[in-house]
C-alpha cells in the first residue's frame, strides 16, 4: 500500500469539500455550535443559578457537554464520506479513477483520510475553543481550571478518532446502495443514535462520564471499527463499485 496515493485522493477530496458550500457548512456548523454555544449555555446556567448549582453538578454537566464532540465525530465524517463516495458515483468519476494505477485499498484509505482529517481537525479546533471558554466561564465557580483533564484527553485523543473511523466505514457500506448523496447522509447519520443514547443516559444520571466509561466506550468503538473495516473493504471492491454501485 502506497500512502502517497491515498494522500493524493484525500487532498483532492478536501479541495472539493472546501469548494462546496454544503460540505463546508457541514464541517463548520456543528463544531462552531459546540465550541462556542455550549460554553455560552454554561455561562447562562452559572449566571442564573450561581452557587445553587453544586460543583458536582457543574462538572458532570461539563463532562456531558464534552461528549458532544463524540457525537460530532460520528456525524461529520459521515456527511463528508457519503458526499465523496456517492458524489463520485453521481459524477461517474469512479471509472476513470479506478483505471489509474491505484489499488482499491489505497483509494478507500484516501477517501477515509479525506473525510477524517477535516472532520477531526475542525473538532479539535472547536474543542480547544470549548475548553478555553468553559474554563473562563467556570473558573470563578470552581476555583480551578477544569480543562484539560484525563477524561477529555482520552475522549479527544482515543474515542474521537475511533468514532470518526467508524463513521467513515459505515458511510462506505451505506454509500454502496445510495444513488444520492443526501440519501446516503440520512442513512449514514443513523450511527449517531447510539452516541445520543449515551449522552441522554449521562444527562439523566444513568451513566457517569469518567475515564473508565470513556475507555469502555472506546473499547466498544474499537471492536466495531474492526468489524466494519472488514465489511467496508468487502463492499469497496472495483468490480462491485463498477457493476453494482452504478
Amino acid at each position, binding site marked *: 500500500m502506497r500512502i502517497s*496515493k491515498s494522500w*493524493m485522493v484525500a487532498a*483532492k477530496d478536501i*479541495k*472539493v469539500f472546501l*469548494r*462546496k458550500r454544503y460540505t463546508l457548512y457541514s464541517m463548520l456548523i456543528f463544531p462552531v455550535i459546540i465550541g462556542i454555544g455550549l460554553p455560552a449555555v454554561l455561562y447562562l446556567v452559572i449566571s442564573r443559578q450561581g452557587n445553587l448549582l453544586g460543583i458536582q453538578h457543574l462538572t458532570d454537566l461539563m463532562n456531558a457537554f464534552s461528549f458532544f464532540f463524540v457525537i460530532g465525530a460520528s456525524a461529520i465524517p459521515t456527511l463528508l464520506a457519503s458526499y465523496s463516495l456517492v458524489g463520485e458515483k453521481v*459524477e*461517474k*468519476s*469512479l*471509472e*476513470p*479513477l*479506478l*483505471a*489509474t*494505477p*491505484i*489499488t482499491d485499498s489505497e483509494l478507500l484509505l484516501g477517501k477515509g483520510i479525506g473525510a477524517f482529517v477535516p472532520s477531526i481537525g475542525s473538532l479539535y479546533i472547536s474543542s480547544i475553543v470549548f475548553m478555553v471558554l468553559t474554563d473562563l466561564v467556570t473558573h470563578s465557580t470552581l476555583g480551578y481550571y477544569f480543562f484539560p483533564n484525563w477524561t477529555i484527553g482520552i475522549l479527544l485523543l482515543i474515542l474521537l478518532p475511533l468514532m470518526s473511523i467508524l463513521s467513515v466505514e459505515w458511510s462506505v457500506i451505506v454509500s454502496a446502495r445510495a444513488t444520492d448523496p443526501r440519501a446516503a447522509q440520512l442513512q449514514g447519520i443513523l450511527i449517531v443514535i447510539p452516541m445520543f443514547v449515551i449522552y441522554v443516559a449521562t444527562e439523566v444520571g444513568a451513566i457517569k462520564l469518567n475515564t473508565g466509561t470513556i475507555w469502555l466506550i472506546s473499547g466498544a468503538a474499537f471492536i466495531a471499527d474492526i468489524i466494519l473495516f472488514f465489511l467496508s473493504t468487502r463492499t469497496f471492491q*472495483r*468490480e462491485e463499485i*463498477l*457493476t453494482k454501485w452504478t
Partner: protein
Amino acid sequence: MINVENLTKKFGEVTAVEGLSFQVKEGEVFGFLGPNGAGKTTTVRMLCCLISKTSGEASIDNYQIGKPADSLQIRKMIGFVPDNVGLYDDLTAFENLDFYGKLYECPEGRRKENIERFLKMLDLWERKDARAGSFSKGMKQKLALARALIHEPKILFMDEPTANLDPEVAKTVRDFILEIKKQGRTIFLNTHNLDEAQRVCDRIGIIKTRLLTIGTPEQLRESLAKPKTEIKLAQVSEAILSELKKRIPNKIEVAGNKLIIEVTDPDKENPVIITAIASVGGQVQEVNQLVPTLEDVYLQNVRETK
C-alpha cells in the same frame, strides 16, 4: 501488444462476452463495433483491469489481465476515456489533469508540460483555470481525452468518445485521435459510429457478445456478399423481370423503378443484363455499381446473429 484468447465474462447467468479472441498490434487503431449491450464496454473494462474475467486469457505487453501484480503495470501503461467523462466539476481543468498526472506518477515537470501541451492542442488552454463544471459537453470530452493522455500512455482505450457530440466537436476529437495515431500510440476504440470507424481504424472487429468478424475496413467490405448493379429504368415491367430470370440466375430486387441485381463479375454480367432489358423494350436510364459499405457489413453480421 494486446492479445486476447477465448475471453469470456459472465454476470451471474448472463453472458456479456463469450470466447473473444483477437490481437491488436503496436501502433494500430483497432475499432470495436457493436450494438448496445454487445459487450464492448465489458471488454474494455476487462482489458483496463477494472473488472475480472470469467475465463480465457488476455495480456497487454505481456502483462496478464487478472494477475493482481500485473494489473497495476497495465494500468500504468494505458489511458482510458470512458463513455461518461467523469470529471470533477468542482476542480478546474488544470487541477483535474494535475490530479490524474500525480496518480499516474508523472513527474512534476513533465506533468505541467503535458497539461499545457494537451490543453493547447485541444483549444482549452485559455480555460485552464475554469471549473470543469462550467464546460460544455464537447469541452468536457476534450478534457477527458487530455486526462487519458497526461502520462503519455502506450495504449489508449476509448469508449464511444464522440457519442452525443455535435459534428464539429466530434470532428475535433476524431482529428485528435488521428494526431495521436501519428505519434505511434495503440488505440482501442469502441464505437457505434461506422463512419468514424472507417475513417480512423486500421482494423475493425464487430462484436455481439461473440466476435462476429474482424479485418481491415477493405477486407470486411470484400468479405460481404457479391457487389450489386443498380439499374434505373423508365419503368419496371413483368416482361423485363421474366426475360432477366431466363438469362441470368442472379438474385434480383425491385425498388420502385430500380432493379438491384447481385453480380459476381460486373464487367461480364452487366452487358448481358442490359441487353436482356433492351430486348424486351426496357429503357435504361442509369447504371450504378454498388460496392458494399461498412454499414452493410455491420448490419449483415449483426442481423445474422439475431
